[in-house]
């Protein structure tokens, strides 16, 4: 077993080699970027079984969930990047005012250099590779540090990535908080972090030492506001989507999972009944046997979730579920009705299969409820009411807002995915991934042919007037002044 010092020494060498590799220019070529993306595609296709096994071992994740949330989503994203790559690399021309004679301007995206991606344990393949897609498409060299809390997936990535990608420019460094700490204090050209706000603060504080830009994908308590829907079809769909977003995506251990529900008092009991029916349909009488609910990742998180239910006022609010199996790290999908708002379950991000329902007098009160709390990564609103829709968008702030569904925004390549305030900074997905790992360099070209002679000292009123005109794009003014036909607005005499 290598000592940590040896590991660190080796790490330093590897990083220096990677910088050299980047400096040699190989990663900037479009052909290299394309080959890396295609390599990822092959990895996902050829290693699918292994990935299913690793996710099952680390989290008890069912292959359908694994495909829906991780593998399938990644394949979609790689294809989107391959499709857009040429266009993205080309950059954009910038419009110029007509007075800018014989000049052209454009924005040229360039890679940042050597970037660090720190991933999370709940979607250990997805959250490692999705940022990687952007970093590679943008032409960077990348170090990936997967989460040690999903060790099988971490190993899989460490073994597979060197076989499918350029191992001089893309490396996986495994390890726990000690290694992460060491990595954070190196100089990077960008750090991309997915995880908790507590660690997020450490990441940006470490980045500040080197003026390293960061993207932080954090979390929060994502509410699902369920309006009193009149159609029973709509009600069933809303319930299914909310429960699916809570319990069938990593058992609620998801940054964009539904954390809690807000509903009007008068609709709440009907809602709970509908939920119970839907729960039975999705998870059967014995959810533990259904294999459709992910495990809690480890004992620490299991105990954390269990402690929520130790509060007697919280425990007494359980209306469905509540079974906990410490040996198998299993918590059955649980619904609670109006637990005390001061309880930990209502203050901290739950990140588990416990769904509190909070009742309000009017559904419009949900706006105040949400805005008086830290800004979440997403707000989900199930309603057909136009005015509630408008107010939700304009009166609350969150990474995103989704109407009549949940989590699905993760799949949209054209929408930026990121947080605000406590839920994070920066964004990715689609072209936003490419941009987040690029520097948008401004490039202006001039010819030697034309120069406004009045650019140069010594200064006088005449030149000042010409400048005034040119700054106002007042072509006629320029012509007249040059011809001596316009009175000049002189330099203030009082100075």
């Amino acid at each position: 077993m290598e000592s940590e010092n040896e590991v660190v020494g080796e790490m330093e060498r590897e990083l220096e080699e990677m910088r050299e590799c980047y400096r040699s220019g190989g990663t900037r070529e479009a052909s290299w970027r394309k080959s890396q993306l295609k390599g990822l595609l092959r990895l996902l296709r050829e290693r699918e079984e292994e990935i299913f096994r690793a996710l099952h071992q680390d989290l008890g994740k069912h292959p359908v969930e694994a495909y829906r949330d991780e593998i399938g989503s990644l394949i979609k994203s790689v294809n989107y990047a391959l499709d857009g790559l040429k266009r993205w690399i080309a950059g954009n021309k910038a419009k110029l005012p007509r007075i800018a004679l014989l000049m052209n301007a454009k924005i040229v995206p360039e890679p940042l250099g050597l970037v660090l991606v720190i991933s999370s344990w709940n979607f250990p393949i997805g959250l490692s590779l999705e940022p990687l897609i952007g970093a590679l498409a943008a032409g960077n060299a990348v170090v990936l540090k997967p989460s040690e809390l999903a060790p099988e997936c971490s190993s899989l990535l460490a073994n597979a990535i060197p076989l499918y990608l350029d191992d001089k420019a893309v490396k996986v460094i495994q390890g726990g908080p000690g290694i992460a700490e060491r990595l954070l204090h190196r100089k990077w050209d960008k750090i991309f972090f997915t995880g908790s706000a507590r660690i997020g603060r450490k990441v940006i504080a470490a980045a500040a030492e080197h003026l390293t830009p960061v993207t932080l994908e954090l979390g929060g308590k994502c509410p699902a506001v369920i309006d009193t829907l009149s159609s029973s079809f709509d009600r069933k769909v809303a319930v299914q989507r909310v429960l699916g977003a809570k319990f069938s995506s990593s058992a609620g251990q998801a940054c964009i999972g539904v954390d809690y529900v807000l509903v009007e008092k008068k609709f709440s009991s009907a809602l709970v009944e509908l939920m119970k029916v839907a729960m039975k349909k999705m998870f059967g009488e014995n959810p533990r046997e259904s294999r459709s609910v992910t495990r809690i990742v480890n004992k620490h998180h299991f105990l954390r979730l269990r402690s929520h239910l130790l509060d007697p006022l919280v425990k007494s609010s359980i209306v469905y579920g509540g079974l906990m199996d410490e040996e198998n790290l299993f918590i059955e999908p649980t619904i609670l009705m109006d637990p005390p708002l001061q309880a930990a379950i209502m203050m901290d991000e739950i990140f588990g299969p416990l769904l509190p329902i909070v009742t309000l007098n009017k559904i419009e009160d949900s706006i105040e409820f949400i805005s008086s709390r830290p800004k979440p990564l997403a707000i989900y609103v199930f309603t057909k009411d136009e005015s509630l829709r408008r107010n939700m968008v304009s009166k609350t702030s969150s990474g995103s807002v989704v109407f009549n569904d949940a989590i699905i925004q993760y799949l949209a390549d054209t929408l930026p995915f990121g947080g605000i305030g406590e839920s994070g900074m920066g964004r990715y997905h689609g072209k936003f991934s490419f941009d987040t790992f690029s520097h948008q360099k401004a490039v202006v070209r001039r010819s030697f042919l034309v120069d406004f002679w009045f650019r140069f000292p010594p200064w006088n009123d005449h030149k000042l007037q010409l400048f005034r005109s040119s700054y106002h794009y007042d072509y006629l003014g320029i012509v007249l002044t040059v011809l001596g036909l316009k009175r000049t607005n002189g330099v203030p005499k009082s100075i």
Partner: protein
Amino acid sequence: MAGAAREDGKPIDSKAALSLVAELRGAFASGTTRSYQWRESQLRGLLRMTDDHEQDIAAALRSDLGKPELESILYEVAMLRNSCKLALKELHHWMMPEKVKTSLTTFPSSAEIVSEPLGVVLIISAWNYPYLLSLDPVVGAIAAGNAVVLKPSEIAPATSALLAKLLGEYMDNSSIRVVEGAVAETTALLEQKWDKIFYTGNGKVGRIVMAAAAKHLTPVVLELGGKSPVVVDSGVNLQIACRRIIVGKWGCNNGQACISPDYIITTKDLAPKLVDVFKSELETFYGKNPLESKDLSRIVNSNHFTRLTKLLDEDKVSNKVVYGGERDPTKLQIAPTILLDVPRDSLIMNEEIFGPLLPILTVDKLEESYHIINSGSKPLAAYIFTNDKKVKEHFVKNVSAGGLVVNDTTIHLAVHTLPFGGVGESGMGAYHGKFSFDAFSHKKAVLYRSFMGDAAIRYPPYTDGKLRLMKALLGGSILGILRAIFGRS
């Protein structure tokens, strides 16, 4: 009163800073700053303020920096005016949500990106373009609908006081405030929770700002600096090249500008001719006695004067002066100075000069410039004068800087369709034009779905059939989807 201190005249401390932020949060929460009308009225206020007080502004700049009137009007007043006018013209458009296409994976749905203000933002300005660098970011912050606290630089005290007075008179004090002061006041402000911090200045303080922001997960824009190199190739009109370099260097606050040409790299063959042309052009512009010229800003204060003379007087550097070198401590003035082939490890080549000293480094072949440039940290700007297409392309591809200009210097600042910002040590984030609006906005993703179009395959109980169908759907192939539905894949 938008003024600096509290009512009792004491400088702002932590407690006062906390209550200032709380007050502005209250104002922001009331929704005042979000309306188009408010933003438009504030921008018009800035415009009127600038128009009405052009003379006062030029006077303050003359007092703080000895800045020539033309530079003040041009680079500070006119540019700020243009910023306001552009924002006023485009505000409606900028405020509109951006519709985006959606794909099969979220079908049926519609989506848009909505720009919303961040909340209460802090803008910390610099001393070299104290009017412009204070208000240009404020234009962006207001256009985006935020409440703003501006902290101008204390090293330009006349401008700082003028800003405090004028913003107090012309702007809505419930949401826009100026806090004057130095390190203590800035520290008190940095302890608070802001929704964004915009800082213009140097890398040392930039790190302090980002570390303070880290505590509150506050995003930042840092507009810093660096050593902006100018590569001069042969086969160019040297007179034009020199003029453009001179204007970018001494014509911009006497070299005290973040994007001023810092040093030149040229071939050994070209260097003597280049130096001659510089000498002749400099004399044309500033006369035989440049210390007397009214067209040069002075050095801002004695600290910087001492710093610059130290760079000049270093052993092995002082004998490399080929033009200029005169200084007048009473006037805080240093003449335009050119040095030839100073040692690479000298002080002058290892910190941002920010003054009227221009070292010229010579190389055998122009290609060697890249090694020199890339061995330092990424600057805010880099320039090249060449007529060779290949050389141009190579430069653009291989030099990383905030912005590049071919055959001129500094003008990219005035192109509002280009993002203005640094990379690496020269900063993070960008602004100008719509980029200012974006820098102070949160781009919120909004996805609208209907209750129709739900696929049972999304939900448990999970089966192999669902897995096949899911693969087909995410893979996007119609044939694949049909096969999966009919159970044939």
